């Protein structure tokens, strides 16, 4: 299996097969990163596509010595997300209903009651994450779902290491409070 660095070097020479391998390697991560950041599937798909197009165009500029492909990819995603967040019009969008229905039908091996409880809990988590300030939300998403270290996050977001750690710490605290309130309201 070829490494990301080799594949991006091939992309820089116009190899679309290498690009396709990279796409399949990172498509799910990127889509879900944007989905969790904005809570909207259509927006997430658009941004994921735009990220990959930018990766293809910027491939010759990739400096493998300074950054890993993963941090470079998330840095591109971060810039795109930041420009969308500046517009602020996608922040308050409700989560698309279709994904919920799709998810329920996919997991129909589990009893319906359990599915509904699981779904409800998932909804609470979604709502809670989307209520976080965007900067804290982004750091939590990168850390928890994308598996980046705080050092990598500071490179991606372009902030000092201490700031990345603080955002994560405060974000988790806030998220915990929101989750507690949401769960209390449900009960």
């Amino acid at each position: 299996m070829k490494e990301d660095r080799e594949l991006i070097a091939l992309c820089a020479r116009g190899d679309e097969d290498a690009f396709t391998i990279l796409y399949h390697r990172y498509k799910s991560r990127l889509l879900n990163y944007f989905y969790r950041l904005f809570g909207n599937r259509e927006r997430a798909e658009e941004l994921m596509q735009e990220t990959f197009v930018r990766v293809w165009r910027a491939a010759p500029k990739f400096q493998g010595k300074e950054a890993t492909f993963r941090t470079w990819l998330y840095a591109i995603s971060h810039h795109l997300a930041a420009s969308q967040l500046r517009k602020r019009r996608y922040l308050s969008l409700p989560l698309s209903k279709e994904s919920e229905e799709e998810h329920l039908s996919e997991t129909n091996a589990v009893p319906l009651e359990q599915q509904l409880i699981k779904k409800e809990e998932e909804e609470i988590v979604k709502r809670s994450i989307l209520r976080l300030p965007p900067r804290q939300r982004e750091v939590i998403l990168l850390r928890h779902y994308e598996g980046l270290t705080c050092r990598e996050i500071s490179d991606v977001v372009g902030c000092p290491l201490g700031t990345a750690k603080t955002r994560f710490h405060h974000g988790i605290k806030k998220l915990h409070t929101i989750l507690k309130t949401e769960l209390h309201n449900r009960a």
Partner: protein
Amino acid sequence: MIDCKKCLEGLSDYIYRQLPPQQMSAIEAHLSICASCQEEYKILSYTLKMLNKWEDIKVEPYCLAAIRARLHPERQKRSRHLPSYIQVGVLVSIGVIVLNLLFGIQGLIVPPLLEHLPAGWQSIQEAYSPLLLIGLLLSVGGILTLFSSPILIMKMITFRSISTEQRGGIPNDKSRTKH
């Protein structure tokens, strides 16, 4: 033994197991004796556990096709332009229009021009007649129209059908409906 500040700093790394074994053990030892850090650990691990309840969504297959269609902007740019034979046809048509315009205004511009001809060019002045010029312009315009129009129309039809085929199967970002 580490203090509470050090412990809290490394707590998330500890949970994600991103610390060297020595530091992992140091935090573990501190947590076993410090109630407040233990509380922080519980909050963090509970919140992170809750985060796992938000499951991933799947990537639709059309996404790759949509990306591939955008990888080569120069190709897209070129395909948006009319082919060279259509451009020639358009230029010929413009030529016909110009000739017809000249036909309309030749009575105004030719006689004053002839009056100012140099001495050696008198034979042109003598040979000129409005009818001859009208005939010449109409003939040239007619020949150009005769050859260019059918080719132009046929090529236009072919070009439209090719473009439609090329677009088929690749959804447009803006026009794509919900999936």
